[in-house]
């Protein structure tokens, strides 16, 4: 009960803000639809983060603070992409640079205490490439028919699983931040399903992948999230791209299948994290 009491208010606040913004954009500010999803999800996450962990200083003092700024960067990137409409290659290269900088910043303590510069940069580049691939996967999911709903349902499952895996890995704070993302995605998903208005989480893939990657990196490098769990969580969205059954299947059926496919590695990641955690000594 104490755990729910702690987690629910921030998740509820974040979800309410994201849903309200998405609704406002869809009803009264349709011209912003290309980045409406990113703004709504980003604003919701920022509010939830501040509620759960306090206002982060700038420059951030530790990795968790960076997650807040990653959400801000994700929103800015989405707005810029919507306004400038850059070519695919330029967009990809720019995003790869942003991801590399983000990974370098969040892994700064490892450079201070554990890694040499060369080793650290190799790891940063590898991780940044992984984040770019994750973004591409989520972006592809989003571009498919019924993609917005699929992206949000996949994110709900992914972040819900990450929440449990992070909590059993010893960090309630990171778990709470993952819960915030999961609640936002679930609420926006319900909004898309329930209301026929053209809700579109345009460019939310970049923001979601950056914040999710930040959570998993923090969980793995600064808490006790097992490497296999972190990898499974990172690879799970790619499974949503697998072909699903016959073409005659309804969109909702395809969505359910894709979400269920993603849930398999996510559940495995949770089980592995649970297995690696010490026994409850009560």
């Amino acid at each position: 009960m104490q755990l729910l009491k702690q987690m629910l208010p921030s998740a509820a606040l974040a979800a309410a803000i994201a849903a309200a913004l998405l609704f406002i954009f869809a009803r009264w500010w349709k011209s912003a639809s290309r980045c409406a999803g990113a703004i709504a999800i980003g604003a919701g996450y920022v509010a939830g983060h501040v509620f759960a962990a306090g206002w982060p200083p700038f420059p951030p003092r530790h990795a968790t603070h960076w997650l807040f700024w990653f959400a801000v960067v994700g929103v800015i990137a989405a707005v810029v992409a919507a306004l400038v409409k850059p070519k695919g290659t330029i967009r990809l290269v720019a995003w790869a640079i942003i991801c590399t900088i983000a990974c370098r910043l969040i892994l700064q303590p490892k450079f201070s205490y554990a890694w040499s510069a060369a080793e650290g940069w190799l790891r940063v580049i590898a991780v940044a490439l992984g984040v770019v691939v994750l973004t591409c996967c989520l972006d592809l999911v989003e571009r498919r028919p019924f993609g917005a709903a699929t992206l949000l349902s996949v994110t709900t499952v992914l972040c819900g699983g990450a929440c449990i895996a992070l909590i059993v890995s010893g960090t309630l704070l990171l778990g709470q931040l993952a819960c915030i993302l999961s609640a936002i995605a679930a609420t926006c998903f319900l909004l898309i399903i329930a209301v026929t208005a053209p809700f579109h989480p345009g460019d939310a893939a970049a923001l979601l992948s950056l914040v999710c990657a930040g959570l998993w990196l923090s969980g793995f490098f600064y808490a006790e999230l097992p490497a296999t769990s972190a990898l499974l969580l990172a690879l799970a969205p790619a499974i949503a791209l697998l072909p699903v059954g016959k073409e005659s299947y309804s969109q909702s059926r395809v969505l359910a299948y894709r979400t269920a496919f993603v849930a398999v590695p996510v559940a495995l990641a949770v089980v592995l994290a649970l297995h690696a955690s010490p026994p409850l000594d009560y």
Partner: protein
Amino acid sequence: MKPLTLVLALISAFVLSANAADTFKVDPVHSFVLFSVQHLRIANTYGRFNDISGTIVFDKDNPSKSSVELSVPVESLDTHNSIRDRSLKSPDFFDTKQFPTMTFKSTKVEGSGDTPKVSGDLTIHGVTKPLTVDFKKGGEGKGVFGEMRGGGETRFTIKRSDFGMNFQQGAIGDEVTIILSVEGIKK
């Protein structure tokens, strides 16, 4: 003249050594960093750090020339429960992988020889704050190997929020009482 020179040299050496400050290396086996914090406003939870290192320079005649430098690896935190330890070491609280050590470095020592007031900079979780404590000097004596030992103890309270550890305020108290009992071996 030669015996007189020798006597003078011995006397001056004795006087110099008597006036010089004593330097003690902290003995981690006989030094303790204990802490207590309120849990759910019900009772206190106690923990300790099992490792500590540092140097204490103590000048009985001129305490202002004394100094303290202590370092505690946060990874040595122990609350007799592995799940709680993991949580305390995680980014929720001490964030040991990003901030592996807590340090105290004195900037001023004043007061009488046996109860000096030690002021300095306490660094926890990457945040440095000034701290003044009343250090109660213990005894001095020889250890089992003939080494000279000295030590003492201090108790003080800090607010964890001052050091950027804000998570779970309410469920876990903000004020943390710390007991530092330190024994050093004279160099």
